[in-house]
């Protein structure tokens, strides 16, 4: 049997992978097998893949659920929720939105509260005001269009664009 990849050298490494319950076999030469990457090469029968392949059709969601828990990871820094729980520290500002739902009970336990009512940074305060103004203008724009007041609508649209430009400059 010749290598499936290069078709030149004889296939000496027989590689089996189970993805989503589908078994794929590959027959490679030593050179191509090494190029495939050491991880795959070292673990041709990956235990997790194997288990997932077997369990998935039988238990469906039950298997998916815990793997979803494991997958709760911050898009910003890669910290998992479990890691956060162990360290008691966030990895970056985005962890807050990534773990958002799970934080309410934690904050309530620590502070008895889940809403900041203190200082608003000046720059951020401007942004918040601009965002609110844009939301208000968008409603006005819809009303103007409905009433077929196109000149007015154009003016409002320009104003929105101007404010959006101001926001993106920050």
């Amino acid at each position, binding site marked *: 049997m010749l290598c499936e990849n290069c078709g030149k050298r004889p296939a000496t490494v027989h590689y089996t992978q189970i993805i989503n319950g589908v078994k794929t076999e590959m027959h490679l030469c030593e050179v191509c097998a090494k190029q495939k990457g050491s991880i795959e090469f070292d673990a041709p029968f990956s235990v997790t893949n194997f288990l997932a392949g077997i369990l998935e059709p039988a238990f469906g969601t039950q298997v998916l659920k815990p793997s979803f828990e494991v997958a709760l990871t911050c898009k*910003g*820094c*890669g*910290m998992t929720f479990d890691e956060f729980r162990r*360290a*008691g*520290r*966030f*990895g*970056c*500002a985005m*962890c*807050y*939105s990534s773990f958002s739902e799970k*934080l309410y009970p*934690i*904050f309530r336990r*620590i*502070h*008895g*509260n*889940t*809403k*900041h*009512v*203190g*200082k*608003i*940074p*000046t*720059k*951020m305060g401007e942004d*918040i005001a601009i965002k609110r103004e844009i939301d208000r203008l968008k409603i006005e724009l819809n009303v103007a269009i409905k009433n077929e007041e196109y000149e007015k609508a154009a003016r409002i649209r320009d104003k929105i664009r101007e404010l959006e430009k101001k926001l993106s400059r920050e």
Partner: protein
Amino acid sequence: MNDIVVTSRIRLARNLSDVPFTIKMNDYDASNVIDRVRDVILKNKQYHFDFFEIKKLPLIKRQVLIEKHLISPALASSKIKSAVAIDQNENISIMINEEDHLRIQVLYRGQEIQKAWEDANRIDDFLEQHLPYAYDETWGYLTSCPTNVGTGLRASFMLHLPALTLLGYMKGIIDTITKLGIAVRGFYGEGSEAAGNLYQISNQITLGQPEEDIIANVVSITNQIIEQEQQARLRLLSENRAFVEDKVYRAYGILKYARNISSNEALKLISDVRMGISMGIIKETTIDKLDVLLNLIQPAIIQDYFGREMTPEERDIKRAELIRKILE
């Protein structure tokens, strides 16, 4: 009797939104934060800041900064690149890459929490103009630890409570105020015991209350503790005057004549004499001098004062000498 409040301190925890927090930082991130903050701080014309990279400071100098409460032990021993900006009067320090990217701290002697808050707030406003803060409309200032989220504010007082300690009331008081959301710590902060009858009390809740309310709450509880300490002192005087007089004069005598004294012993004696002055028993010296000593007797500061490194034995001799000189 305002001398029960030794110092007032405000601390604000802040982070940048575009750099991982310190737990996830690499060397590049750490230098990036330091460089950007340094550039901004040097732009400030209102205060004059000196800037120090912690790893470039000799160990003894770091210890001096800890003893002066200008940096935390955590910053001094930080594994990642960290720095501190200190204003010329040594009231303000901005720690960089401690638990949070920024820790703005203002510390004054006496009851000056309002002044400390105004300074901290002003510096915060200034930094925020030039740096992208991690802030969320719902959760406020985003901090590394969930216990600081919201205002990122810690308002604290260092209180001298010798009479309450002597009469055994402190445990009860600590139990009560802990339930009111106030934390109690020793002289050097977290985990340290109340050496010299000095207790640091501060707010624990940072989310869901405006800064002014948080400060007002700590002030109100502090005022109640002050009142209790005053009553405890009056009780000591009326019921045990002879005992108190003997205790404070013995302490004064040892401080004034000792030739060899450890920092721990000195701290205990200074505490007694301080109470004695406040009670009107000792008139030979002043609270101000004792507060100077409170700082000077510490192991690193004393070496810094004499401008050279000393063995512990040598320090104990020099410490006694210095105390005698100041009490003269």
